[in-house]
């Protein structure tokens, strides 16, 4: 069967995967760990949180890949919820950063040392 471009294929039916699923999983895993690295190495709270967002999205990719492998919509549902939760988290997180900045004038994590790490 000839591969079709996914955009065109979406209306016509789900085409077979020519890219091995493991490749998607690999990308997802790598992205996840890039996110982990960022979360651990960044010094700015905001950048750390960005990295965490990347982790979440990497997980989403994993979910989508597995959902595709199994032809199962449950994985997509989970991603839907994860995206919503991420938005909620972002709102609260950023509000906390703003509050912290107002109180301390910095959100450098290394300088957030009123409480001993």
């Amino acid at each position, binding site marked *: 069967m000839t591969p079709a471009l996914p955009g065109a294929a979406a209306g016509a039916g789900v085409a077979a995967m020519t890219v091995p699923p493991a490749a998607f999983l690999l990308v997802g895993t790598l992205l996840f760990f890039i996110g982990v690295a960022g979360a651990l190495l960044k010094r700015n709270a905001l950048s750390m949180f960005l990295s965490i967002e990347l982790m979440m999205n990497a997980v989403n990719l994993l979910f989508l890949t*597995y959902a595709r492998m199994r032809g199962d919509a449950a994985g997509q549902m989970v991603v839907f919820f994860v995206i919503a939760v991420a938005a909620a988290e972002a709102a609260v997180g950023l509000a906390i950063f703003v509050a912290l900045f107002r109180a301390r004038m910095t959100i450098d994590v290394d300088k957030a040392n009123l409480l001993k790490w």
Partner: protein
Amino acid sequence: MSGPFLHVTSADLAAVAPEIVLALAGMLLILLDAFARPARRAFPYVALAACAVANLFGNYPSGSAFSGAIQASELTRFVDLLALAAVVLSVLGGGALLERDRKDQGEFYALLLWSAAGLTLMVKGTDLLVVFLGLETMSIALYVLAAWYRDVPEATEAGMKYFLMGAFASAFFLYGVATVYGRLGSTRLDALQAAAAGSSAYGDPLVTIGVLAILAALAFKIALVPFHAWAPDVYQGMTTPAVAFLSTAPKAGAVVVAVKVLMALAPAGLGVPWRPFLAALAILSILFGNVVALAQRDVKRMLAYSGIAQMGYVAIGLATFTRPALEGVLVFLAGYLATNAAAFLAVAALSGGEREPHPLADLAGMGRRRPFAATVLTLSMLSLTGLPPTVGFIGKLLVFRAAVDAQLVSLALVGIFGSLISAGYYLRVVYFLWMKEPTREVEAPAEDVLSGAAYILAMTAMLVLGVLPRPLLDWARTAALSLPR
């Protein structure tokens, strides 16, 4: 199979009735705060009433609901009550303090109620997605509560640290769920259990890694070494009455979820392959928590490390993972809730306030000046040490007994070694309270009727359950029996 479309039965609603009550009460509080500010003195009572009503609805029938997304059981009822109890104590003890600091917005109580609702939903969840949503509801509310004194740098810093690390842990939770889903084809614990039972799942490295990631995320919420780093900072900076909640019920919830995950994804023989992992967490937590707590000079920070150690004892129960051990864990958690919440409330009542640190030295002489709160704190210290006739002893008795019965004497020995070390710092608090003359005047908030009620409640729980633990034990037993397998 897909469930019925937009179809909710009364049994479904009954199963989440407590959550509904809590959520609605939270919304009511927000509206009240917006439109009835003058009635702010009534907010704590509204929250308490919500808890009471939620408790009235707590007698829902067991069984799965919402097309199998959740599973109501004795166990969830047990955790419901723990969550409500923690909220009640926190509200009772926190009212006066917040009012003094003019921080008694309705949102505080609303967030507490919502957090509790998320917690109970998390425990009910059979679908890991529901578990995740419950976990996040609980956690996000707590992130906000951590930074509740948003003009206090320490509080916002605590909020930031808790938030960052919490979000980090959530990502790992999701990673675990994704992996397990990919390998076993479902996010539902019952389906996972069925799938795993008939396959080579237990040897699959990715499934193992997935479960590991989920457990690590839960261990973060429980604050087990090496996933504990947030606890001391957050406890220290967070509003003390909110810590009374944070440090108790959410941990219980996370423990129960961990048990459910292990039940589903550990092969028959009850989690034995996970034993080294859990035992390592237990040993590290007990030793690290207790030793570092010895060095602390801030009460809240000390209690944070002590909490890490206490959860180490829980981890002993998890590592043992026999039915009596799980029972013991539940009893331990219930006792810990009353004890630790009481401790934090008393610390709040005996310290200068949320805008200042809580050095141990400030407790000096409080035995004479504030005998009531000091007695509560003393009692909770004894209970935390695990000395009879307090409920802390009963919990340890059950957990250690289960460990010994499972031939894990060495774990029990580590446990008692930790208890011995812990006596050093718990009794130091008692020493400051009763045996040391104050070096400076501390402006402690006035006690009101509500906090008095909180003290009496907590003391009763600590002592009565310590002497006559049978009702608690029986209930914990039925709760543990309601677990699958």
